[in-house]
């Protein structure tokens, strides 16, 4: 790591501590855990730890969007349909009350059993899903409601009709709508942050990641199939492109890491939801009350800075 990168990392860590996105009654122990994380980061995250994140992010018992909605939002009303063609159930949209204020919510939704998985298309949205998301973003903007997005998808659906209905364009326009929004937007990667399907709803003022979530440009299997010419080399691919939360933080892609209960979010849904709720509240409170123009400008400036080049 170059001196400059070290410095950048230090700055980010300092910022993270100041944000203390860890909130709640167990603050001190959480901070302690974070310190341990940071120490580990200095020692470099191991390939095994990266792969463990991949497994935990995909864990069959991991809480999904609606598990969090149930625990964090009151009076939730789900909104259905893109007003054009369909209601894509891989993406849930709606409105509810979060700690005293009305918020809009957009989140990918995976299924628990085979029937629901099929119905939710494994959390892989069609363009119709992203059009529904855009409609809800615009609704949030119109009424001044803050927007939460929860990202959990292997990727946008790769199918014939998805292409015919404009998957690429829908993902591009969804990001463009987010770049225009004048209301606070907080996103959290709660499982798999898979590529275009993820970023389509993650152009936010604050982007968080749960401790064991992953965020990546391609699936480890996909990357392995192309670069190693063998999908079986997924572990090597993951180790090489580093989709874990700590690396995302280090690279300046996310603003904070949300802790999970010991063992992972699947081990205790209530505690995972409590920790996520604290983090969302803190992140939202940082940007709430900012004038729309300033929000927009700063959100764009933040993404303008992303990338490392020579």
């Amino acid at each position: 790591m170059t001196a400059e990168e070290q410095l950048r990392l230090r700055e980010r860590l300092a910022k993270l501590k100041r944000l203390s996105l860890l909130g709640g009654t167990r603050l001190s122990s959480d901070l302690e855990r974070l310190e341990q994380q940071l120490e580990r980061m200095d020692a470099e995250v191991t390939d095994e730890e990266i792969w463990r994140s991949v497994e935990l992010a995909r864990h069959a018992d991991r809480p999904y969007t609606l598990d969090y909605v149930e625990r964090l939002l009151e009076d939730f009303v789900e909104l259905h349909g893109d007003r054009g063609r369909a209601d894509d159930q891989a993406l849930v949209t709606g409105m509810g009350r979060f700690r005293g204020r009305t918020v809009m919510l957009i989140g990918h939704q995976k299924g628990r059993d085979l029937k629901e998985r099929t119905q939710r298309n494994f959390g892989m949205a069609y363009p119709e899903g992203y059009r529904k998301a855009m409609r809800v973003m615009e609704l949030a903007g119109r009424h001044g409601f803050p927007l939460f997005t929860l990202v959990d998808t292997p990727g946008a659906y790769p199918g014939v009709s998805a292409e015919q209905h404009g998957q690429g364009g829908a993902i591009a326009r969804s990001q463009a709508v987010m770049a225009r929004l004048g209301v606070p937007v907080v996103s959290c990667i709660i499982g798999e942050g898979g590529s275009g399907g993820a970023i389509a709803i993650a152009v936010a003022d604050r982007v968080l990641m749960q401790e064991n979530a992953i965020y990546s440009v391609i699936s480890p299997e996909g990357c392995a199939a192309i670069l190693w010419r063998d999908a079986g080399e997924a572990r090597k691919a993951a180790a090489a492109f580093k989709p874990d939360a700590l690396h995302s933080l280090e690279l300046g892609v996310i603003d904070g890491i949300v802790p999970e209960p010991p063992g992972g979010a699947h081990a205790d849904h209530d505690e995972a939801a409590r920790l996520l709720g604290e983090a969302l509240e803190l992140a939202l409170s940082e940007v709430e009350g900012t004038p729309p123009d300033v929000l927009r400008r700063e959100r764009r400036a933040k993404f303008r800075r992303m990338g490392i080049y020579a």
Partner: protein
Amino acid sequence: MAESRIDVSIERKDEPQPAEGKRHPNTCPSCGSHYRDEELSSALRVCRQCGHHFPMPARERIAHLADPGTFEEEAADVRSADPLEFFDLRPYRERLAEAELQTGLGEAIVIGRARLDRHPCELSVMDFSFLGGSMGSAVGEKLVRACESAAERRVPLISVTASGGARMQEGILSLMQLPKTVCAVEELHEAGGVLISVMAHPTTAGVLASFASLGDVILAEPHALLSFTGPRVVQQTTREKLPDDFGLAESNYRFGHVDAILPRTELRPYLSRLLRLFSREHRDG
């Protein structure tokens, strides 16, 4: 299965490969006609026999579109770094060095100011032969600078894309080039600027899912593959029978995703007409 899917790739996914890998780059893949390089270059790399569009190097594209002597390159010094110290079967740095050597380009995109039929404009042209035209931090940065230069000078931006998508070797930073370029186009639009997006073969994945799809006008070259996911992956993932024109420009036109399909020989006059229509003199009457 969901796990085995690929939605961003730098591979060529659709080229019919008759004699596997043996075809000379100047032999037409659809009719077998063979050309000398100067011959092909002077014909805008379009097959005289069957009209097949060969890939067009960025420098040739610029030479064709810009009025002679008007192109001034910008941000030529922006190069890729290797933030992840990425190593697959070969180190990323080695792949970059090789691409530079083979193409004579510093990156998969060239940007700069130009005039087209005397209309001042900004040009941004991608080159598929540089690591599959993949978009990493440097490509994203240069596209953003092209947007900024166009906005600042109040001239239209003409973007020509040819890309397999995001550059895997830069991991999540490549994915961040999607919102980065989208935000830049938003800024350009808010400043009253114009983006004309020309999609050449192939414009897929991360590039299709970001700035390329945000053109005020979107044009495509005949038979260009314009799909978020390539046909091979769709086939593998869904086992669906693919239509013959899956993802091609013609299919995109039919489904309403592009404004026009233009043979390369007709592109320049078409762009000229658009630039005239968007020009301030015309707007103010």
